């Protein structure tokens, strides 16, 4: 505080900061973006390494032999699935029992707030089947989960077959110190949600499920398996869970280590690792991989069935088998050995996975960026807000020229000012509340009056409320206090800038990617907007940088990153479905992105919109 307590130096510092405010802000913004882009450059990242002692040094031998039999079981499962036209519960129970597991089922039902058009479901009824392999070597206080979803059509039959094969093989081994739960969940995440809620005796989303009859110990780790072909070329690891939560990095390290050992090609975000980091194409490859992770994390939705485990403190990941046109093929035996190895190492754990990082980004499977490296990028953006706030504060604190006595002046202006700041604050938040509640509650009414489907009704209402919000709040202070004053908008902007800084800071802590993307678009808005800039172009820029447009660009950008570019028409359709998925994720799994945007970010942006039209 030495610098701040010496009045002369302090004054010099403040005058420097106010004089050079705009250039410093621009430099900070550039530096933030450059820093972020630099994160994908391999020399700046760390190599992954196994931190957990119990998983690192122990030798494990994998000898899973019955890949062919697992595939046969898979085919049998497929036949029964086709016959029943859904999940063959009886067959599964019988098969699991034959493999010596304690088998239980759980039924669940759930009515979605509106039909999910992507997966074509509205009233969901289903059954989870799970078998517990009791640990022969230790008290049954801890458990591991291996799950495979039972999906409609021809998908994932091999995953179920392999799961059953592994169950049979594991049953004959004696070294298990943790219960192993083999779970086959129906209706992917909805079934998973029901099972996890049943297992932990919580009910956060108001779903109906029958209580679980059997339980293992507290679950330490979980893997979800997706496998749709007999041979594969590579294994893909999916980490992003609900609200952008990631499992402990050691789980990714474990997967990578075994893939290296067994010689399976492994990818993350569907991208193979490349060795030519010093070439332009190598760098852009890792930028692409990292940006895919950032986009997926920012979306806040679970990108695999593992996504809901993370909420219960369980480290989990999804492993996907991918069959592409590559020459080099891996058979089921090898995948079985990979899983066996991973489970044996997890079995050795003495405590929960906690040694390694929880906050990271991965530009490739062998390299990661930890929180200490990526937070400065966000910090450089956030500091712009603080600098602007300081600038405004100094402008507010210095008495306006012309009046002799600043005290009386501020005292007189006090009460209308509070009102003129409070009104836009309240109104924009009410708009936010409307954006949050109306789409689902007005669904019926919209259906009666417009020729649209249920889902369209919800999404279009959301967009309508959003657009209506633009017209509503500005100039409200006029009704309260007459003409808007110079002082008034400065106070409002100070409040808005600080609000945005706190909001983005909190968001970035929970979900860095979301915070960073929002900061990238909202910080320039917050920095430049005043009532004195030219109205039409600024309004245009403001709309372009608003949260909804950010989402639209993100949709196109994401498609671009995945190398499946789409036309504007398809992009718009995708955009609508992304909005409906966001709302669904919130009501089904409690994802926080939709309420965050509707209740906090959008009102905050409206405040800046308000400042632009301050007169």
């Amino acid at each position, binding site marked *: 505080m030495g610098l*701040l307590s010496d009045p002369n130096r302090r004054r010099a510092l403040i005058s420097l900061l106010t004089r050079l405010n705009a250039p410093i802000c621009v430099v900070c913004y550039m530096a933030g973006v450059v820093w972020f882009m630099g994160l994908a450059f391999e020399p700046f990242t760390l190599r992954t390494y196994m931190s957990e002692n119990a998983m690192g040094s122990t030798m494990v031998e994998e000898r899973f032999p019955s890949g062919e039999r697992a595939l046969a079981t898979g085919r049998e499962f497929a036949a029964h699935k086709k016959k029943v036209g859904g999940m063959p519960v009886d067959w599964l129970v019988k098969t699991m029992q034959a493999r010596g597991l304690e088998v239980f089922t759980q039924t669940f039902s759930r009515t979605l707030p509106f039909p999910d058009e992507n997966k074509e479901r509205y009233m969901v009824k289903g059954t989870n089947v799970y078998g517990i392999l009791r640990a022969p070597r230790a008290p049954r206080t801890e458990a591991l989960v291996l799950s495979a979803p039972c999906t409609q059509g021809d998908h994932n039959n091999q995953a179920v077959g392999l799961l059953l094969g592994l169950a049979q093989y594991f049953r004959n081994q004696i070294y298990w110190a943790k219960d192993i739960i083999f779970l086959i969940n129906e209706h992917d995440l909805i079934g998973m949600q029901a099972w996890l809620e049943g297992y932990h005796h919580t009910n956060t989303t108001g779903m109906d499920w029958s209580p679980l009859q059997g339980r293992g110990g507290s679950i330490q780790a979980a893997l979800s398996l997706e496998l749709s072909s007999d041979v594969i070329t590579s294994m893909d690891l999916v980490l992003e869970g609900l609200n952008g939560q990631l499992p402990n990095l050691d789980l990714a390290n474990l997967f990578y280590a075994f893939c290296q050992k067994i010689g399976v090609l492994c990818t993350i975000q569907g991208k193979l690792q490349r060795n030519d980091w010093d070439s332009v194409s190598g760098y852009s490859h890792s930028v692409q991989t990292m940006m895919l992770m950032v986009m997926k994390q920012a979306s806040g939705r679970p990108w695999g069935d593992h996504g809901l485990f993370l909420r219960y*403190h369980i480290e989990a990941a999804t492993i996907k088998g991918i069959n592409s046109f590559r020459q080099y093929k891996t058979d089921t035996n090898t995948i079985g050995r990979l899983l066996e190895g991973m489970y044996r190492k997890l079995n050795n754990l003495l405590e929960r996975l906690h040694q390694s990082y929880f906050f990271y980004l991965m530009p490739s499977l062998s390299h990661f960026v930890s929180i200490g490296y990526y937070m400065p990028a966000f910090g450089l953006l956030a500091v712009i807000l603080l600098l602007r706030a300081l600038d405004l504060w100094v402008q507010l604190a210095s008495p306006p020229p012309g009046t002799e006595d600043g005290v009386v002046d501020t005292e007189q202006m006090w009460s209308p000012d509070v009102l003129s700041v409070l009104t836009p604050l309240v109104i924009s938040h009410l708009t936010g509340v409307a954006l949050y509640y109306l789409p689902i509650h007005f669904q019926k009414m919209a259906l009666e009056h417009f020729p649209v489907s249920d889902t369209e009704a919800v999404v279009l209402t959301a967009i309508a409320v959003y657009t209506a919000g633009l017209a509503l709040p500005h100039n409200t202070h006029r009704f309260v206090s007459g003409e808007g004053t110079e002082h008034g908008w400065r106070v409002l902007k100070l409040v808005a800038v*600080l609000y945005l800084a706190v909001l983005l*800071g909190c968001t970035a802590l929970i979900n860095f990617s979301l915070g960073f993307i929002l900061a990238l678009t909202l910080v320039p808005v917050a920095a430049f907007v005043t009532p004195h800039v030219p109205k039409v172009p600024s309004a245009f820029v403001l709309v372009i940088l608003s949260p909804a447009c950010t989402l639209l660009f993100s949709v196109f950008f994401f498609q671009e990153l995945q190398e499946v570019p789409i036309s504007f028409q398809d992009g718009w359709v995708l955009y609508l479905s992304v909005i409906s998925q966001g709302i669904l994720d919130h009501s089904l799994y409690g994802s926080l992105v939709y309420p965050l945007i509707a209740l906090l970010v959008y009102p905050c942006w409206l405040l800046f919109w308000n400042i632009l039209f301050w007169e």
Partner: protein
Amino acid sequence: MAAPLTLLLILAVTIRAALYRSSLADLIAERVEVVSPLTAWKRVVEGLALLDLGVSPYAGDVFHETPLIIYLFHFLVDYAEITFMVTDVITAVALYLAVKDYNKQVFRKQKYALEAERYPLDCLELIRSPKEMYYIPLKVAMFYLLNPFTILSCVAKSTCGLNNAVIALFILTTIKGNVLLSAIFLSLATYQSIYPLTLCAPALLYLTQRQYIPVNFRRFSFWWFVAQYAFMYLGSLFVMICLSFFLLGSWDYLPSVYGFILSVPDLTPNIGLFWYFFAEMFEHFRLFFLCVFQINIFFYTIPLSIKLKEHPVFLIFMQLAVISIFKSYPTVGDIALYLAFLPVWSHLHRFLRNIFLVSCVLLACSALFPVLWHLWIYAGSANSNFYYAITLLFNVAQVGRTVTETKVHLAASVSGFVYRSCCLTVT
């Protein structure tokens, strides 16, 4: 003046009633920032249940409130929400009346001084106009009732609200000059949470000044007044302690309440400084540091009373701040009480150094508390260090704010040449 106050009260009660009805109430009641092991409503309910079963409420080490509170809620448990709302209203009205009275005195003093031309010309801007002072009591009541901290604490039914009411009544009776009632409320506050004991000093200073007794250790009249006050204070404290004994029929509550406050066995995270420190410490240093931490709270009374003996009301404010920062189980409700006094010294705010920085830090910390708690407890990805870092920052900001406030107050109160030079350094 009554109309705006009534409006304010209605608004405050409406907000609270609405929040009680919402689903947020349960969430808020669980927050560690809002309720401490001492003040949690859940624990009061547990104590009541034990009492109804005919077991001592202190059996089981859950309940740590005083016996009078549990007997109060024995009758009022069905009207708990109303009780807490009424308590907040009482606090606000008491503060309102107290500040109104205090301002009258300040104004009178200022007028005499002006007439005697004791103020130098250049500090005229610090002289307070009646118009400006007219709104201060209302602002104080508003700062208390509409402060989000108070609202949270009321909605969580934290018994901290009751303590605040008792302290507010103590301030009111002291400023009105009622020696007996002041002593009784002070002893009630002490009985509730020990720490308000330090408010003895400002109360004595204020009451002696009011009765024109010079604070002189060689004068008999001073000692006689101190003895009178001490007698009333200790007498009522004795009555309360005995009353509690007769109500419960055992001395169980002494270790359970006061032992619990002083020896800090519950290390649930909160916004204070104790929990992390004692969780990390080796066991054999515990007693020593316990003494250091507890003496720390009481110690400031001496230097502050010497330095601020001309300004007992400011001293009360300082003591409240010190208590709420350093006490063993602080909650946001405690902070709300001293924050309510800020408008009283609003004329000094221009001189506060780093006020912008400190306010921003306080604001950001309040938002970060739940976020880091979520990351630590629910997501499991952060750890206690994250949360404690924010606690530390929060308290550093509070201390910074309190220290500058004192400095400025001292500077502003010294007249003439000294004042001018201070003013220069401060700005």
